[in-house]
């Protein structure tokens, strides 16, 4: 039966990691194209509020999830118009976006505080899901988890195996050079920002529809910021973002158990542990393989205005 306990722990780890994977992968794509969007937290929480409202109104989890992604996309579009279209400062715009998202989420969610909803349905395949040890982990998740896993694979493939992905990375590396080659710098960046917004919104929707299936103000609790940090420490690589998110999720679950077991360490220290562990692991990882060039997209955060 220990196998089932291990599985139970792994399921909770994966659940804690999923919103970070979703938001982190989206931000990774935006940053790979050279745009630093610090508004992840805002897009996430607005996505959470809108997804819950839509799901309550329509009764559909799928429409709720789409609504959440759409809400993130909407905020990202605003950010994209400002920073890519009008060459506004990305840091300032991103921070304002977070504040705006927090405010809008309160407005949208005002009528739904305290209402509970059934969590998003989990996959159930007779025979497979009941397999001991791995059945629930592999065949018994909700759609968000599968979407997150698929997203990591798809983005990895896209960035390193397709021509469009190559263009995106090239634009993030040097917008002057790629513009001189005739690549559509601003179009690619705008689309990348939109993608990042939709992913962040989906991550928020996961929180409100599956992780804790209710709406409460501020429920993202800084996960957007953690997703941002994950992208940096993962040196802009999708698999490392996923690994970092899992590590963070694991440490979160572990410290909960440790607190419950009464280890005698201050609770605040244990709560800080996931952050410390994740940062430490990813810093070591990025130190190990540096020999030259730059890990970050070289044009990250720099505004671009073409002359014509």
């Amino acid at each position: 039966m220990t196998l089932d306990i291990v599985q139970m722990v792994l399921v909770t780890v994966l659940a804690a990691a999923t919103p970070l994977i979703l938001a982190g992968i989206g931000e990774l794509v935006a940053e790979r194209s050279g745009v630093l969007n610090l508004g992840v937290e805002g897009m996430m929480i607005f996505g959470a509020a809108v997804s819950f409202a839509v799901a309550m109104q329509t009764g559909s989890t799928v429409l709720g999830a789409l609504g959440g992604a759409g809400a993130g996309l909407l905020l990202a579009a605003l950010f994209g118009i400002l920073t890519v279209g009008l060459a506004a400062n990305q840091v300032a715009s991103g921070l304002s976006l977070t504040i705006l998202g927090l405010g809008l989420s309160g407005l949208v969610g005002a009528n739904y505080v305290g209402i509970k909803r059934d969590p998003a349905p989990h996959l159930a395949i007779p025979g497979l899901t009941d397999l001991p040890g791995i059945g629930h982990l592999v065949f018994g998740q909700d759609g968000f988890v599968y979407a997150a896993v698929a997203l990591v694979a798809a983005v990895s493939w896209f960035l390193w195996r397709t021509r469009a992905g190559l263009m995106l990375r090239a634009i993030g590396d040097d917008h002057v050079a790629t513009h001189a080659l005739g690549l559509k710098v601003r179009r690619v960046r705008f689309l990348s920002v939109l993608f990042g917004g939709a992913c962040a919104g989906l991550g928020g929707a996961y929180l409100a529809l599956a992780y804790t299936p209710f709406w409460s103000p501020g429920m993202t609790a800084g996960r957007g910021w953690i997703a941002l940090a994950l992208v940096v420490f993962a040196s802009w690589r999708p698999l490392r973002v996923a690994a970092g998110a899992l590590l963070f999720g694991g440490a979160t679950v572990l410290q909960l158990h440790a607190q419950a077991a009464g280890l005698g360490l201050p609770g605040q220290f244990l709560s800080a542990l996931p952050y410390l562990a994740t940062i430490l692991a990813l810093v070591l990882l990025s130190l190990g393989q540096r020999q030259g060039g730059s890990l970050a997209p070289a044009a990250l955060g720099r505004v671009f205005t073409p002359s014509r």
Partner: protein
Amino acid sequence: MEAVRSLSAPVPRAKAGPTPLFGAYGIVKRFGSFTANDGVDLEIRAGEIHALLGENGAGKSTLMKILYGLLEPTEGVVTHKGDIVQLPNPEAARQLGIGMVFQHFSLCENLTVAENIALVMPKDLSGRALADRIARLGIDYGLHLEPDRPVWSLSAGERQRIEIVRCLLQDPKLVILDEPTSVLTPGEAEALFTVLERLRQEGRALLYISHRLDEVRRLCVRATILRAGKVVGTCNPREETARSLAAMMVGNAVRAVTPQEGATLGKERLRLDRLALPAPGLHATALRDVSLSVAGGEILGIAGIAGNGQAELFAALSGETRAPDREAVRLDGAPVGALGINARRRLGAGFVPEERNGHAAAPLMSLSENALLSRHPTAPLTRFGLIRPGAARDLARRVIEAFDVRKAGPDPAAGTLSGGNLQKFVVGREILAEPGVLVINQPTWGVDAAAAAHIRQAVIDLAARGAAILVISQDLDELFEIAGSIAVLHDGTLSAAVPSAETTREAVGLLMGGSSDAAPAPAP
């Protein structure tokens, strides 16, 4: 002047003879109130290397960006085989068979060679097929590339090879080369010329943009000369002298640099004693027991191929790298090896690094702020730790006037100046401080003839006023023109200095190549 005037007659629109492969007629390009191109006509025929000559800021780059679809002309048309074509973007230009080799390479440093090339290749080309074609082209033209190397690890010559291969893979009918030799060593330039001649024989047209007159006279039989955005003439550069070409580019005869005559050397002002420094990084060079001595009134030239320790030597002289032994570097007899750059400036030294943008000047800051950056230890630009903006602007204005720096607006950002003008500014900024010791790394790199002559003359005049000057340069002509004695830096080792009158380019060239005769500097 008379010769120039006769050449400035308007070029007839429809010349006799075959229709040119590409033509540009009546091109006007305005940026706000500034006219970069003013009614430019240009005809390029298949199988010719056509030179586009002009000073920095004459409008060469603007014209070529229009031909490559990067800029839209305000007025005028581009033709292909006599038909007017639209070039809304570089993709359209590539479709017509126009390829470009950029001066400031348009390469993404963190991508590999193959990825950089794939960026502009047709969509249906697989990675393997591309690697094959890169390899085949490398064999055909002697342009060897390693497809999987990241660009940041490559030298300037290798980077240019990527640009050329990328261009050739599209089988271009017209190849535009913008100042292609400005970053190459002499050997790399020779290899490039061989490739260019081969391309010409294949019937391609080449537009060769340069201000290096010797190269143009060697490669091209037709040249279009631009000055201040206008065509001032077309000619056969082989029938002109370097001086007459320069006169057309500049509008008046280039002032020849007057060398100092019978210089009386003063006492020793700058001295290095067996300076040894480990290599600061993977791609850097260690300095091995470098000794030298420069007296007041003397100009010592340090020749050498890039990457043989020039940057490290400059950093050790300026104080960006501290010497392990404070006695190893002396200014006017005082040991300064442990002092930083500002302390050395206060002792009367001035420094001009190689890289204008980012090392000598902060490109996004204004000229007066840049004046402040290097001159605050030696000029009254601050009071109680606060900046005196008026004094800084005044100093910048004096530099601008003394060195004829052309710029837009009263106090523009340094990055908006053309290369030659910014170089005049950063050199002038140091020279106006009347330093007793001046160290310059590549004083006229990528600078047009007139600006280069101005800078060299200013350096010679400073030496005549008693300063000790150390010039690090890859340009042997420059060193023989201004330096009283020359030493060669090879693999971090400095040869003994010899009077430039007593040596030859060949002898110096041998030492640059690391010939076994390269004797280290004698111990004092």
